């Protein structure tokens, strides 16, 4: 049984990567790069569906009762379904697969210098389960009664009794899809963590691992530790729906608050699960484009651990007005405000990295900088909401909604574009068009602020969420407020139109773009030392690592970057 030991010693590359047929290369791949792209493409298709839903319900809010072009009439039930599934899709089927599974798959083996994931076939299986979960979710839109409309948090008793939700099948398919998705990410997560722990290149110490990999691993661990109770809860909710148990129904001795706890015990760490990969991506980009060492590598790392640890004790700040014990509300207020300390520290580290650097405003850098700017607004408004006294007023208003989107839009969409534009040359071997990239950037970032800044004001004016038509509320049906709604909606349409620029740029560059060199950005991490796109098996000779990933502008060196695998010069 010395198989493993022998393999570690003879770490040379087995030269038997024969050409695979199309089916095994692209449809049923075991190569982590192809699986990563499958996740990314699936996520982008789901993003289009989620964006389309947002378009439909925003149009209804701006022009209530009128036919929405390309959609039709949005009724009250349908409005709920659109809102619910917009949230579900964007979090579970866009943010998670693209940021964690997609880039995690693509980057982890390349950045730690090995030829694939530790369990390639498990990796393929987790994508296939994910695909099935996406199909189940899409199927739920077309069953009798339509898709589930009980909000992405799916609080019982609304979600657990068909007579209340009016979506007998939609609700069950929804919970099934979410549960399948969890299974997929649990399998994928085990693979990621094991790979990063065990398969690092020789010489790569813990503190030589790029922040992007570290953060994906921390995120995956947070996910694995938080999702378990919700998996149990999903089973219980599903049985409430289909079998008629009463786990969450007060009529049978159950407790609806229990579901809220189960959900948010997962739901709040989940925010950090999707936030951390983006923070990691941003760390890679800002160091490369400011040609500076990351300010306080260890600090950044430890703040991520602190954030992860604290994220498990803040969940009840979502439930301040749900009837929880007021004494607990005090505790959770304190922890919620505490969690902003490590995150603020991390942000300061990033800004300090920029200070004095030779900043180059390429498209990826623009995205990374805009992430920091937008996320700060989202983070700071979060502190208001964390204080239970203020939350009593703000809860379930558009202020919460705007705050949430100021965190999740930067995380998901800006993070995704930052990563895509940065690693596009490596993925497809071609450069993206810089001008179109910048047009797309400004065409997304400006409308984004125009959509969500006004919503803070609507929230302060008392506009409640999840209302499909404000004409029934005299206080909220004033022309002023309606104008704000129309402004936000028009901005959304503008933003969606600008995404066409990206789609055009993406596909044209993929086939016709300028050929990319191995290392177009002069970066240090291992994935840039090999041809673009990398071959099956990644490295011709598996690399050995000599230094950390952020050795930019080292004094006394001719070149301003120093790849991790370059042997130190003999003096």
């Amino acid at each position, binding site marked *: 049984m010395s198989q493993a*030991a022998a393999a570690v010693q003879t770490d040379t590359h087995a030269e038997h990567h024969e050409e695979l047929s199309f089916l095994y290369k692209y449809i049923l791949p075991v190569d982590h790069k192809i699986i990563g792209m499958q996740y990314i493409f699936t996520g982008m298709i789901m993003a289009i569906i989620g964006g389309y839903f947002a378009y439909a319900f925003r149009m209804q809010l701006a022009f209530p009762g009128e036919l929405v072009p390309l959609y039709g009439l949005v009724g009250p039930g349908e409005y709920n379904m659109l809102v619910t599934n917009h949230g579900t899709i964007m979090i579970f089927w866009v943010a998670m697969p693209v940021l964690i599974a997609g880039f995690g798959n693509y980057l982890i083996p390349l950045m730690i210098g090995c030829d694939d994931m530790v369990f390639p076939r498990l990796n393929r299986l987790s994508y296939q389960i994910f695909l099935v979960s996406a199909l189940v979710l899409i199927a739920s839109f077309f069953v009798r009664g339509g898709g589930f409309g009980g909000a992405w948090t799916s609080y019982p008793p609304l979600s657990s009794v068909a007579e209340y939700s009016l979506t007998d099948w939609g609700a069950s398919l929804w919970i099934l899809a979410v549960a399948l998705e969890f299974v997929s990410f649990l399998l994928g997560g085990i693979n990621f963590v094991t790979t990063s722990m065990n398969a690092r290149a020789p010489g790569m110490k813990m503190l030589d691992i790029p922040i992007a990999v570290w953060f994906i691993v921390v995120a995956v661990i947070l996910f694995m530790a938080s999702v378990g109770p919700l998996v149990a809860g999903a089973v219980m909710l599903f049985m409430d729906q289909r079998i008629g148990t009463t786990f969450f129904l007060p009529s049978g001795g159950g407790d609806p608050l229990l579901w809220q706890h189960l959900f948010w015990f997962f739901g709040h760490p989940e925010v950090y699960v999707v936030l951390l990969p983006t923070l990691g991506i941003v760390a890679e980009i800002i160091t490369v484009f400011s040609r500076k060492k990351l300010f306080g590598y260890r600090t950044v790392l430890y703040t991520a651990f602190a954030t992860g640890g604290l994220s498990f004790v803040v969940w009840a700040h979502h439930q301040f007005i749900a009837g929880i014990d007021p004494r607990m509300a005090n505790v959770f207020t304190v922890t919620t405000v505490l969690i902003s300390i490590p995150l603020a520290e991390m942000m300061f580290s990033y800004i300090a990295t920029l200070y004095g650097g030779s900043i180059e405003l390429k498209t990826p850098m623009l995205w990374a900088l805009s992430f920091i700017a937008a996320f700060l607004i989202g983070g700071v408004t979060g502190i208001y909401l964390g204080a239970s006294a203020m939350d009593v007023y703000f809860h379930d208003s558009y202020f919460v909604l705007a705050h949430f989107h100021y965190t999740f839009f930067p995380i998901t969409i800006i993070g995704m574009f930052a990563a895509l534009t940065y690693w596009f040359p490596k993925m497809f071997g071609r450069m993206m068009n810089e001008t179109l990239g910048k047009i797309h950037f400004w065409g997304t970032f400006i409308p984004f602020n125009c959509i969500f800044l006004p919503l803070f004001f609507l929230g302060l004016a008392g506009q409640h969420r999840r209302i499909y038509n404000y004409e029934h509320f005299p206080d909220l049906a004033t022309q002023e407020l309606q104008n704000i709604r129309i402004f936000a909606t028009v901005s959304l349409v503008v933003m969606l139109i600008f995404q066409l620029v990206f789609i055009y740029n993406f596909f044209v560059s993929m086939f016709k773009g300028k050929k990319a060199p191995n290392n177009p950005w002069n970066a240090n991490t291992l994935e840039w030392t090999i041809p673009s796109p990398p071959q099956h098996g990644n490295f011709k000779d598996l690399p050995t690592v000599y230094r950390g990933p952020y050795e930019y502008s080292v004094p006394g060196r001719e070149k301003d970057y120093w790849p991790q695998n370059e042997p130190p010069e003999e003096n």
Partner: protein
Amino acid sequence: MSEAYAHPNYIKIWFWLLGLLVISVAGPMLEIPALTIITAFGIAIVKAYLVAANFMHLKFEKKFIWYLLILSICLLGVFFFGVAPDVMMTDGDQWIDCIADKSCVEQRL
């Protein structure tokens, strides 16, 4: 796998486990609730330790695996104590008024 370590005597461990099982079944027969809790759950923990340490070879495993598993259980403790005040105190919405006569609990059920 490849590591060489002396195996624990599996049969002996198995006899220990069976002995503990007999105690945990016999415990409630004394009909002392406090003792039953100890014989039921205390012995479950001892049994779990025996299985984990010997059969699952945790004795010979790297220390961080222990930490990983113990941390998981601690986190469940955090969850329990975060939820307990809500789920276990259904004497609810008026806080003071209904504790005395439990009237609102009945209303709710």
